[in-house]
Structure formats: C-alpha cells, structure tokens
C-alpha cells in the first residue's frame, strides 16, 4: 500500500478545485437548469423612503412569456413573514419586520416591491418595466447622528425611534479591569479622535443566485450562499417548511467576503413563488442589483479616547460607536460591532476599557458582516490611536507599541476585554518585519525628504494587529445572545477500496477547503492525497454544519476532522490487530500502516477498510464500520497576529498616494498549505488597502446609491497594488490540536490602518493628523491645504 512519505501538511499544493472553478465548468447556481423552470426578476424601489400607494401589475401580466406577477399581497397576505435576525444583542433590541416584498412602505432604495415569473430571464426583466407603482414620498434619513437627533424623520414610524440597541462593555463593571473614566481623568496625556469607517460593498465575484425546486419530496433550494446549514434552519423557521422537508445546497460559490452570510428575501421569495406555482424557479441578480441590495459593510462612526502616562504607558481606552444598520437588521448585523468590542484593546496591556455601541436605523441598504466584521474597525481605531499617541508623546510609534504590548513570555494573557490570548510573539514578528522593510533606512529617507521639502513625501505606517478567529466557543456566543453555537462537524467515510470521502460542515466558497482538508486527512490516515474527496455544502449528505465565516473553517472544522480521523484509527486498530493476530496494545500506526511493534508485520489502513467492508472475519462483536463523525466546539478563540509595515509616497501637489513598499509578517500558527495562506493574505491586503485608499459606497441626499457600478465604486485593480513582501512567524495556537489560527481576514484587518498611518505620517509635518477614508487624492490634497483636519 502506498503511504505518503513526507507530511502533506505544510506542502504548497496547488488547489485541486481550481481547474473547475476558474474555467467556470462547474455547478454555479446560475448554471443549474431544471425542466419547466421559470425565471424571476424583482422590481426594486427607486425611492429610499416612500409609502406605496398602489401597484398595478396588469400590463406586466400581459407581457410575452410572463406566467405571474406577484406582490406582497400574493406571497404573504397576512404580512407575517419577516426576515430573521439571529443576533438580538440586547433583550430590548428593536427589530422591525423586514418583509419578503415591501407591502406598504419602502425603506431603502433597492427594496423589492414585486416579482415577475416568466419563461425566460429576459422576459421577466422586460416585464418589470410594465409594473406601475405609485409612491408617496416620505422624509429620508441617511446620517446616523441626524437619525438620532430629536424630531428626526423615522425609518420605522411605529418604533418611535431610529435607535435599535445600545450595547455596553465596561471593564470596571465586568471586573476585568479598572474604571475608564477614572483613568482618563487621572491621565497625564489624553487624546480623542473621531474616525469614520466608510460604507463598503462586499464585491464578491459571483452575483447571488437561487434555484428552488418544489417538485420533489423535499423542497430543494440551491443558493450561492456561505451558510447552507443556517439557511436551512432559518428557512424552516421563517416559512414554516418542516426542516426535514427542506434540502439546501450551496453548490460552488464564487466568493462571499461575508456578503453571503445572509438569509435573503429573494431566497424566501423564490421558495414562496415556487410553491405557489408548483414549478422550479431561478433568481439570479445583476451586478447592479448586487451592489445595491446585497448587504454593505462597515459604516461606523468611532469616537475614541485614549489616556496614557507621559512616558508612554497606556492607562485607558474608551470607545463610543455609532453603527449604521441600514433600514433593517441583517442576519448577524447587530452583532458585527460586538465582534470588534473585544478587539479595541488589541495586543496591548490596557488597564481600563469601556466600549459602547449604538445601532442606528437609516434609509439605506442594510449592513452586515464584511471580511473581518467588527475586527477591522477595532484594529483601525486602536492602531491609528497608537500612532497619534506616539506623535503626541514624540515617541517612535513602534517603540510605543513595544512598551505596551503583551510580551511573549506573558502568554496566556487575559485581556481587559475578558479574552484569554493563548499564544503569540509580537516581538518576533515585528523584528522580522523591520528587517524586511529596512525600517531605519526608510526613516532616514523620510527625514531627508522633509529636510529638502521634496514635493513627494514619504510616510511609514505601522499596524501590529491581532484578531479573534476560529468563531467560536458556543458558550461565548451564548453569553453574547447569538442565536446559535460555534461548533463544527466532520465525517470520514472509509470506502471499500480504501478511498476516503470526507464531509465537512463548513462551506467553502473559494477558500480551498478541498485541498487543505485532503492534506490533513492524508497525514492523519496516511492515505494518498489523491485518494481523498472532500464534500461540502449539501444538507443531504452533510446534515450538520455551521458554515464558513470568521476565519473558522480550519481552526474549528479542521479540528473536527482530526478528531474524526482519530476515531477512524481507533476503529481500525482492533481489526488490524485481528488481521495480524496480535494484541491491540502491540499495534503502532505510522505512515498509513498498522505495524506490530518491533516486527515488520503490518497492514495498511486501506486494506483494513476492505476487510471491514467484507466483514468476513472481524473481531467478535465488532461493529462493521470505520466511518466516524466528530463535532468540535472550541474552548477559546484563536489569535493570529502580525506586524504590517507600509511605506507610501504622497505627492503633496496632487494628493496622490502610492504605496512604495508593503511588508507583512503574519503569525497564523501552523500552516497547512502555504500557497493558500499566501493567497488569503494577498487578497486580504488588497481589500484592506481598498478601504484605506479607494472604496466608498456613497448615497446622495435622496438616498440613491451613487456608486452602483464598478465604474463609480473604486474597487482597485491589480494595477493599483504594490508588490507585497510577505513572511511568517509560527507560534502554534494551543487551543486546537493542529495549532492553526486562521488567515481569512488577517490581511484585511491589518492593512487598512497601516496604509492610513503611513499617509498621515507622510504629511504630519504639514499639520495633518487625520484624513477620512478613503484617502483619495482629493481628500489628501484638501487635508494638506487645510493644514489640519
């Protein structure tokens, strides 16, 4: 039997799923065509806030190919169906019902008001133009502070307020630290800043799409989603379809970035229409609809106060957030700021901390998870503040950080926010990054350019970040009132010929699970990489799962896989002993073989699989199966960290920023596949840099999204990116047997403050101490002209 010689884990294997993904010859939801299938198109409100006076669908019904034109009255006559929110962060959180289609009032531009079912997608689209909707304008509220002001127009009149919830953490009250007000009033130095996290659009590559087939024994839903399992539970609860009568499939999914952690009104709509008409239906959105209606990310106003001693010891941190929910609450939207609540203190030993967040309704597209969700916002704020504090104190920003961070010999370390960081080595990552970057050399060049009044100034930005990954310990989620647990499942099936089928409950949508999971199983069971197939995303063969987000798949799902593999070995061992006629205690397992200790007698696991299948000669009372399941619930998060250094050149005459060099040294724990890690870092950096310099979703005063295409929404291209220098240190996580931490969000979390810090650093001597993101040439130029904010 073949046994893999060198370990698979750690190999830079090309991803086995890529050939089919990049050629498009695969099961994207939109590629699915069923007999008799109808196509849906949704009529969307052009108004951000209006009463619906009337909807006339008669002309549209007469259009060629149209089978039905339906409104809220048809789909949900009693107005009972509301889109779920799984994270009621406070008992009194206000949660307005979000209907499948608006019945009486639209609350953001893009909200659906009617749906056409037609024989072709083009006919459905054409018919939309013949639906007449009469709207009566309602006052629009877009700005969070305006929304909270006395007498503001209300997004939801019946709530009597635009405030959804207030959530507070206070280290004094929680017993995890001191009283922050005291710390601030006693402080030798204190600084207050306001940062705006602009609204971003998670521009996943594959627009969303759903196919629903009502004709089989189960209602089958295919959807381009990150969360097939959660979608199944939520669809059952939302529509009252018994869960066992529902099958949800996430076929190949072309990216999500958090934008597909959602239960969509369109998914519910498709199910309702399919059931009503008794035919399969498909809904696939246009790019424009994706930009307008898929939930947006970020959109917070952060008021931050930091206090410190003159010699640079941070004594307190106070955070007041406003978080824009948009017009309704998304699936986990209210909790996104909470994912940041534990991260503002970052890698620093801060003795007193308070966090308060007010979630606000406005007449805009809803916001929800977007790559990093809460953690990039927190990291940005603290890393910007550390730079500002360093400037205030006249210290080198790296030195200030070093003074305050947790030293490697202090782990495990319980933070002021109550988390216990299991491991880390900030010194090592920073030292390596400084070398690669030539920190001292660049500082010298910066001085020279300042001295010579060079029109192009150089700035150095730092971000020493950490993040909580591996979401999440179920008990922690419970304490935060999240609606579900954070475990993950895995099953391993040993097939008669020795091949292996692996089923994971996490749901890949571009991450490369099939490759990484195969590498893990290959090592655990000692079978060849090629003999392993990884399956995911279909509730029929993978009934249990918590899906993919929060850099959790490997730390949680990968661990479940290891546990399942160990069980397979436990089950195989007695059979192997029986086959070799020796005692179980004399068996050794290495390289895919059970060997009688001290002999050359052995049997391979793949042969054991055949013997178990045949079941002719098994130990007495042996249950004839090697198949094993495992569910893993982590006891703690994992905490990737790293040091990112960015040098930018700022043309002070035009405000143009160009990244001269970017070095990151990340510690993501053990690496299963360096190629995948590298890819995640590169993509993450691009996305984080995009927030710093390019992207912003803008609404005009009537609430129309003015950045609704890629021509207006500045998603950067490869031409805008620098060459990244990446490296790693490896401090294994101690909270899972693989020692892994997660890498899906690191780049996004770390890079935004590194870039903005470098821009400010370049022009600080010109009197600039903040520039609102994105740091576009215009903003940078204006800041320089203004000499201050």
């Amino acid at each position, binding site marked *: 039997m073949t046994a893999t010689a060198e370990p698979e884990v750690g190999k830079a294997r090309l991803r086995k799923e890529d050939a089919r993904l990049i050629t498009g010859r695969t099961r994207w939801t939109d590629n699915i065509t069923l007999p008799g299938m109808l196509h849906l198109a949704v009529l969307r409100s*052009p108004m951000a806030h209006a009463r619906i006076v009337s909807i006339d669908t008669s002309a549209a019904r007469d259009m060629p190919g149209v089978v039905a034109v339906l409104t809220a009255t048809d789909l949900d006559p009693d107005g009972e169906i509301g889109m779920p929110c799984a994270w009621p962060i406070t008992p009194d959180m206000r949660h307005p019902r979000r209907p499948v289609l608006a019945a009486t009032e639209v609350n953001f531009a893009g909200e659906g008001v009617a749906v056409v079912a037609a024989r072709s997608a083009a006919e459905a*689209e*054409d018919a939309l*133009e013949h639906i007449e909707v009469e709207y009566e304008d309602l006052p629009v509220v877009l700005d969070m502070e305006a929304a909270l002001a006395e007498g503001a127009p209300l997004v939801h009149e019946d709530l009597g307020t635009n405030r959804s919830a207030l959530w507070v953490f206070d280290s004094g009250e929680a017993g995890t630290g001191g009283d922050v007000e005291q710390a601030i009033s006693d402080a030798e130095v204190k600084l207050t800043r306001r940062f705006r996290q602009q609204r971003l659009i998670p521009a996943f590559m594959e627009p969303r799409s759903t196919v629903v087939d009502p004709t089989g024994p189960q209602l089958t839903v295919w959807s381009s989603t990150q969360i097939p399992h959660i979608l199944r539970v939520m669809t059952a609860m939302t529509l009252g379809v018994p869960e066992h009568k529902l099958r949800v499939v996430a076929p190949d999914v072309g990216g999500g970035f958090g934008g597909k952690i959602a239960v969509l009104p369109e998914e519910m709509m498709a199910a309702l229409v399919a059931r009503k008409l008794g035919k399969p239906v498909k809904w696939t959105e246009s790019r424009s609809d994706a930009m307008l209606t898929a939930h947006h990310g970020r959109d917070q106003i952060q008021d931050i106060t930091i206090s410190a001693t003159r010699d640079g010891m941070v004594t307190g941190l106070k955070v007041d957030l406003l978080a824009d929910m948009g017009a309704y609450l998304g699936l986990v939207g209210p909790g996104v700021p909470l994912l940041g609540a534990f991260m503002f203190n970052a890698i620093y030993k801060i003795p007193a901390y308070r966090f308060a967040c007010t979630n606000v309704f406005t007449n805009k597209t809803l916001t929800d998870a977007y790559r990093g969700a809460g953690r990039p916002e927190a990291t940005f704020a603290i890393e910007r503040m550390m730079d500002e504090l360093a400037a205030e104190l006249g210290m080198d920003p790296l030195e200030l950080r070093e003074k305050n961070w947790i030293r490697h010999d202090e782990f495990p370390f319980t933070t002021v926010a109550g988390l216990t960081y299991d491991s880390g080595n900030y010194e090592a990552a920073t030292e390596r990054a400084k070398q690669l970057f030539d920190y001292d050399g660049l500082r010298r060049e910066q001085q020279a350019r300042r001295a010579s009044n060079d029109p192009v100034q150089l700035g150095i930005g730092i971000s020493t970040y950490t993040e909580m990954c591996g979401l999440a310990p179920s008990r922690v989620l419970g304490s935060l009132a999240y609606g579900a647990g954070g475990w993950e499942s895995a099953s391993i099936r040993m097939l008669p010929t020795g091949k292996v089928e692996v089923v994971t409950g996490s749901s890949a949508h571009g991450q490369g699970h099939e490759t990484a999971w195969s590498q893990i199983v290959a090592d655990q069971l000692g079978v060849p990489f090629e003999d392993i197939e990884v399956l995911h995303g279909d509730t029929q063969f993978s009934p249990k799962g918590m899906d993919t987000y929060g850099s959790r798949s490997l730390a949680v799902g990968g661990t479940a896989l290891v546990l399942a593999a160990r069980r397979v070995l436990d089950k195989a061992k007695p059979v192997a002993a029986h086959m070799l006629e020796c005692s179980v205690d004399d068996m050794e397992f290495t390289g895919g073989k059970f060997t009688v200790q001290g002999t050359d007698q052995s049997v391979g696991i793949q042969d054991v699989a055949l013997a178990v299948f045949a079941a002719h000669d098994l130990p007495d009372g042996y249950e004839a199966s090697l198949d094993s399941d495992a569910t893993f619930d982590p006891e703690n998060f994992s905490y990737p960290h790293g040091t990112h250094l960015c040098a930018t050149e700022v043309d002070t*005459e*035009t405000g143009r920023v160009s990244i001269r060099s970017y070095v990151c040294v990340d510690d993501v724990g053990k690496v299963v596949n360096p190629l995948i890690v590298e890819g995640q870092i590169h993509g993450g950096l691009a996305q984080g840099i995009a927030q710093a310099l*390019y992207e912003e979703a*803008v609404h*005009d005063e009537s609430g*129309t999204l*003015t950045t609704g295409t*890629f*021509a*207006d929404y*500045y998603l*950067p*291209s490869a*031409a*805008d990116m620098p060459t990244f220098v990446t490296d790693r240190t490896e401090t294994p996580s101690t909270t899972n047997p693989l020692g892994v931490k997660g890498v899906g969000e690191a780049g996004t979390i770390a890079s935004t403050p590194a870039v903005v810090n470098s821009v400010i650093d370049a022009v600080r001597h010109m009197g600039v101490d903040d520039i609102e993101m994105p740091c*576009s*040439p*215009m903003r940078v*130029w*204006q800041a320089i002209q203004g000499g201050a904010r």
Partner: protein
Amino acid sequence: MKSFAYVSARDVPTAVSAIAGSPNAKFLGGGTNLVDLMRGNIEQPDTIVDITRLPLTGVDLLPDGGVRIGALVRNSHLAAHPLIRSRYPVLSQAILLGASAQLRNMATVGGNLLQRTRCLYFYDTAAACNKRAPGSGCDAIGGFNRNHAILGVSDNCLATHPSDMCVALAMLDATVEVESTRGVRRIPMNEFHVLPGDTPHVETSLAADELVTAVELPSVAVAANSRYRKVRDRASYAFALVSVAAALEVTGTTVTQVRLALGGVSAKPWRATKAEEVLLGAPATEESFRQAAAAELAAATARPGNEFKIGLAERTIVAVLRELVTKGDAA
C-alpha cells in the same frame, strides 16, 4: 430594455440607407456604450443597424504622410498599430489609458467618438437631466458633480465628454469623415463635438442619419514628442478627472511648436488654443507653462464639487510640458 428591430449591414450604402428610413435607429459598433444605455432605458432605439461587418477596418498611410483610420477599427488594434505607435504615440497612450483591455477589444473608433457622458444623473432615469430628457432640469448642478465640466459649461448641463482617444485626436487636428445618403462630409475634430448651450442633448455636429466612416490624421512631425497624461481615481478602469494631451518642440530654449488638448473638463475634447498662443515663441520655462495653463483656465467656471479641477488641470498641463522638455532633450 425596449424591443427593437435588428439589421446587419455589410456595406456602407446599406448601412446609411437603413438608417435614413428610420429616425429612431442607431448604429451598433462594439456596443460597449450603446448596449449599456439601452439596458438602462436611457437610449431606446427602435432599430439597431449593426455595422461591425462593414469593411472600415483599415489603418493606412496616406500619400501626404497622414494616416487614415477606418471607423470600425477596434481601440486595442489602433493603439497597437505600428504607424500609430511610431508617429502618434500620444494616441496610443490615450487609448491604452482608457477603459479595460476587454472593453478596448470591443470598442470601435466611431463608437468612441460618439460615446456618451458618464454623468450619473444621465444614467438615473429617476433624476432630472436635460441631456436625457430635454427641459427636465439638471440634477448635477447642486448635486454630485465632482466629475463634471469646468470649461464651456452652460446652466443646462455640466457633463463632460469622457473619451481619452478624442483628446488625442483633437490635439492632432484630426478630421472625421462621415457619410449619409446625401453624400460624404468631412468635419474637423474641433467642430465634431459641440458645447451644451441650450441644447445639451445635441452633442455632435453629426446628423442622426450620418455614419462615421473614418478618421484622418494629418502628418504632424511634432507628434513624435507627445504625451498623454490622465489623472484619475484608480489606475485602470476609471474615467479621467483631468487629462492632458500635448506635443512640444523646443528649439534652443524657445517653444517653436506646441499642441495642447484637455480631457475631462468639457463637453468636448478641449483644444487649449489660448495656452498654445501663450507658449508659442515663449521660453520653455516652468514660468511660461504656468502662465499658459492659467490663460487657458481663466475662463473656467466650477461648482463647489469640482473646483479642484481647475488647479488640477493647471498643474497637469505644467507637469506634462515639463516632461516633454526633458524628453525632447533626451531625444
């Protein structure tokens, strides 16, 4: 999108007679602009005359040293053509800084000339826009007008012509050849696009039934020292905030030939004749470049959203001229 009739023309007479009979017909080039506009119901032609099969795809040297470019030459082909790269580098550069590779592979010379503005209210059928719906007003005035014009604007419209290619053509004194059932006309590039005035929906001097058949470039020796610079918000796939096409000859220290055109600042590619006048015969110094730029932009009118463009245009002119001096020296 409204349904429409489709006609495919194989020769020019068929194309022009097909359009002559139907006032609401449109020619289809690469479709990269027209199809988008039709999808959004901004353009609603009842007939599409597909001209992509017309034999107007040559790039040929003329006896007088100029070059004739067929209206259906694709943008990427034109930019890569050896005649253009060697004699009119500014045109290659301008094209390559526009759109994306995929779009340039589709886009034609004729379509590029006639592409419509990127004003966002023009695209939003719920907004007031004199260009799309004459007399309805202009939401860009007082709205989001960061990308809008500062030269030749009217109270009815602030839109810019978004083309990069056309800026180079204007600088090169190109001529546009057009044909209808009434015959052939030649329109100087500078008269091809028109300012908005009271009729912002009228964008060119082309009649509705005229087909662009070719663009001719005269022989321009100074074009060998030419440069296109585009300032925009992202390094690809973005329209110009300001762009400058320039060619310069300096003899000794005196400017002996100069051509200058601006993009992103007006409803037409803006030939900067005032700046040229200041520069011609002046010393090739930073000082004269600045004076020339200021002279050109003296007539600029900006709104609070786009006033930055005046300074940006001035500085970009100076920067490009400065570069051409250095480059000319090296050559």
